[in-house]
């Protein structure tokens, strides 16, 4: 239904603009700046001049940001996508309002929606400013990944909501279990696991089924994802319009990572109930799909909706910054935004096990970080070919920004390129050097702590059944290395 604006004029206006054609089009557009979204949508239907005056993407960007985001909004360009983003945002809000009220009341749904949106817009920082400024490690996400129990800590401020939801769910749990279609749950769970990357963060298959499920919990998860997806889409649009994408991305990611923790806690009773129900029905053996993890779902959405559209621009800006540091002063390294970008991309690329081996030179580079890794390595190859440099300085720069695996790869390329160029056999040999270093020993030590003998292939094979792929890769790599050394001996 089209809303009739209910306007009761208290005082007769002193004048009317009898003929709006007197107003130039550009000024008419400026007038529209003073109207809000519902008014813009109403006024644009008046005639074609009004319609054109109302379609400025700047207006829709401002309205979207005011309702769903926090941003200074200073960029001078705005995409026409903002109008459709506004539309999607409003649609998501109405979706929430129309969720079933059998378990949650409309008011509770409203509280949840407002909490979700305000958390995305301006989450409470979890790290103090000082700790964030000095580029702390591990980051919040890496911290959570490596300590999964932390994900289930409920902030005291959220208790009132979480508790209320938990009580409702508890009271209605029997009915809920009975009403929840098993097939729907299987579909949902399957969707969270069917990718080969099930153990990696940011699996690309966390979408709900297209079929509309009638289980409220599943619909609720879908509703949460709907809002987060729109937010992420808008965030990527803002980043693409930003003049300094590195700073903007790093800030947006930091804010989102705080939001992830809070949203994870906020909806914990919901995800836990689904998980519990599923485990009760399907047991807890090796074939059981992984638990629904809100944190991983949110990371996945960010990866697809924000990182993917922005990755080319990010890579090009990182390479620019590298060149700037190399050409000007190495002191700039300590202020490099690329460092924050690397940490952010590692958040999206590491899993519970590989987070421990982040500083290892043999870490298998995967996920979004690999895009940056290979992009930079390719660019460096060209650079080393055209401008032979002293690698010690180069290494200092690279080590200050990237993880050891990238620095190691760059060094190997450097040795290979320069060795061939100057027919230096020593450098060529070094480019093939896989010798163990202290980090390799550390992996062995950790593997042994897990009870895995590094020289027993059968045990490795058995270990691989646990599907701890990343860790297993590293250990198998070590094993292959040992075999290789043994055969040489």
């Amino acid at each position, binding site marked *: *239904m*089209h*809303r*009739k*604006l*209910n*306007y009761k*004029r*208290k*005082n007769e*206006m*002193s*004048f*009317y*603009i*009898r*003929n*709006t054609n*007197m*107003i*130039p089009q550009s*000024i008419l557009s*400026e*007038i*529209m*700046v*003073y*109207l*809000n*979204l*519902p*008014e813009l*949508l*109403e*006024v*644009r*239907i*008046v*005639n*074609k001049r*009004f*319609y054109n005056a109302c379609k400025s993407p700047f207006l829709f960007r401002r309205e979207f940001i005011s309702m769903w985001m926090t941003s200074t909004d200073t960029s001078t360009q705005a995409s026409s996508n903002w109008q459709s983003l*506004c*539309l999607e945002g*409003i*649609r998501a*809000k*109405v979706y929430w*309002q129309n969720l079933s009220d059998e378990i949650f009341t409309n008011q509770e749904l409203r509280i949840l929606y407002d909490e979700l949106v305000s958390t995305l817009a301006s989450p409470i920082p979890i790290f103090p400013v000082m700790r964030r400024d000095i580029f702390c490690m591990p980051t919040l996400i890496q911290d959570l990944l490596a300590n999964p129990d932390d994900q289930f800590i409920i902030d005291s401020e959220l208790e009132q909501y979480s508790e209320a939801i938990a009580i409702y769910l508890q009271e209605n749990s029997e009915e809920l279990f009975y009403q929840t279609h098993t097939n729907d749950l299987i579909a949902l769970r399957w969707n969270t696991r069917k990718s080969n990357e099930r153990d990696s963060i940011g699996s690309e298959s966390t979408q709900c089924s297209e079929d509309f499920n009638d289980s409220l919990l599943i619909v609720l998860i879908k509703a949460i994802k709907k809002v987060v997806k729109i937010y992420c889409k808008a965030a990527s649009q803002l980043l693409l319009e930003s003049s300094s994408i590195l700073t903007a991305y790093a800030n947006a990611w930091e804010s989102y990572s705080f939001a992830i923790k809070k949203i994870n806690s906020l909806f914990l009773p919901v995800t836990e109930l689904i998980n519990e129900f599923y485990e009760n029905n399907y047991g807890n053996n090796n074939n059981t799909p992984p638990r629904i993890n809100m944190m991983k779902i949110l990371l996945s959405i960010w990866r697809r909706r924000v990182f993917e559209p922005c990755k080319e621009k990010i890579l090009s800006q990182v390479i620019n910054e590298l060149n700037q540091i190399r050409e000007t002063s190495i002191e700039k390294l300590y202020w490099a935004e690329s460092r924050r970008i690397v940490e952010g991309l590692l958040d999206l690329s590491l899993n519970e096990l590989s987070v421990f081996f982040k500083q290892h030179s043999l870490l298998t580079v995967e996920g979004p970080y690999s895009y940056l890794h290979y992009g930079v390595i390719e660019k460096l190859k060209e650079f080393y070919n055209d401008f032979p440099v002293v690698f010690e300085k180069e290494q200092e720069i690279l080590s200050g920004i990237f993880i050891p695996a990238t620095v190691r790869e760059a060094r190997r390329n450097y040795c290979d390129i320069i060795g061939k160029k100057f027919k230096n056999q020593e450098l060529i040999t070094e480019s093939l050097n896989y010798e163990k270093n202290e980090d390799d020993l550390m992996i062995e030590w950790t593997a042994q702590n897990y009870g895995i003998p590094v020289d027993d292939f059968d045990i490795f094979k058995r270990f691989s059944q646990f599907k701890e792929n990343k860790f297993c890769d590293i250990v198998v790599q070590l094993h292959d290395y040992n075999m290789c050394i043994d055969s040489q001996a």
Partner: protein
Amino acid sequence: MSEITLVSKEGTKIQISSQFSNLSGFIHNILQDYQQNEDISLASVSFINLQMILEYAVHHNFQVPQPPRCPITSPNIADNVSDPWDAEFVNRLNEDQIIDLVTATNFLDMKSLMDLCLAKIACMFKYKDIETLRKEYGITEEFTAEIEEKLKSDFPWAMEAESND
């Protein structure tokens, strides 16, 4: 340099403090190469408008005042500006004057006063439905019935969602 001479399009001269450049981007740029006693011709600004502009500038002591609320929250301009004098100033202008003043401030690159005028016009549009706007401003429909219906049905939930707030 303490005073500058502005010349309206009718040729009338007005003396004003050079601080006027704080409010006008056009005058600010002119003063970069200004020689004393030189007249500054404002070919697009009438004497009446120039007087009003100067009245506004003097009231605000040649400093940029706080801008009107954006988006506006009420159809009454007084609710959208921090200085009640601004509302009184703009309320006493008739329709021709306000359009003229917008054009003059646009020429002078005088954002603060232009914003005030634009906000005043926006107040006229606020809370009015399509038919009222068309009737009051003598606008004949340009969209076909089908297109208009489509535009209305594009965002039906927009109106409902916001009205529930």
